[in-house]
């Protein structure tokens, strides 16, 4: 089973129900073609970095799925290309680290990847701090006693 991830942007002009049904239609299409839906991530309304079809915002969806026959992806992509409710789409094959990353993200281990790493860096620094100074050398009295004993 290979894991894939398809991200698409739905037109924000549509009503809430239409957006839901559009996303659901593609999930159903994937299931009908024999794919196992792992997770559907609704990223919600986001600002686009540049206008697409004269829209400045878009509703982002990301669907992770596993399939035995990757040839079915072409069918789904063709349907998305013909659909004017979809502004953009991208299908990506996930490697083992990508699968693990998505699992961790769902488990809440990665809230924001970069911000999670920064506290780790801060914590590790005091550990590598300067060790406590060695105890002061013993007093000079000792050689005197030793000298007196020799006498």
């Amino acid at each position, binding site marked *: 089973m290979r894991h894939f991830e398809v*991200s698409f*942007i739905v037109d924000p002009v549509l009503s809430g129900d239409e957006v839901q049904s559009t996303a659901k239609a593609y999930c159903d299409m994937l299931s009908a073609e024999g794919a196992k839906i792992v997770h559907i991530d609704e*990223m919600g309304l*986001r600002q*686009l*970095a*540049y206008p*697409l079809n004269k829209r400045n915002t*878009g509703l*982002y969806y*990301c669907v992770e799925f596993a399939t035995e026959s990757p040839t079915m992806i072409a069918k789904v992509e063709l349907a998305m290309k013909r659909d004017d409710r979809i*502004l*953009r789409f*991208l299908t*990506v094959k996930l*490697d083992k*680290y*990508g699968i*693990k*990353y998505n699992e961790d993200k769902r488990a809440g281990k990665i809230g*924001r*990847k*970069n911000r999670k*790493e920064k506290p*780790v*860096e801060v914590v590790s620094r005091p550990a590598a701090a300067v060790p406590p100074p060695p105890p002061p050398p013993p007093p000079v009295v000792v050689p005197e006693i030793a000298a007196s004993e020799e006498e």
Partner: protein
Amino acid sequence: MATQDEIKFLSNPSIGQHKTKYCRFKKFGLKYVDYKDDAFLTQFVNEQGKLLPRRITGTSLKYQRRVATAVKRARHLAILPYVTDLLKP
């Protein structure tokens, strides 16, 4: 008149000091570069949205390739811009 204690350095001592660069992916054990995380990817592009070279970010070659792919995917999905000015304030 400044006293001797106030005059410590004739030149700024932080100039010319070499700060060692490192690959953040290797250091923190990050194996996957997410193309949907725009806040993370903006660390690897300049104000115009162009990819920064490895000699500035310190990323290793393996992860630089993955960062480049992730940035290109993000551009396609309008998460990052292709061309812009003042991406970072």
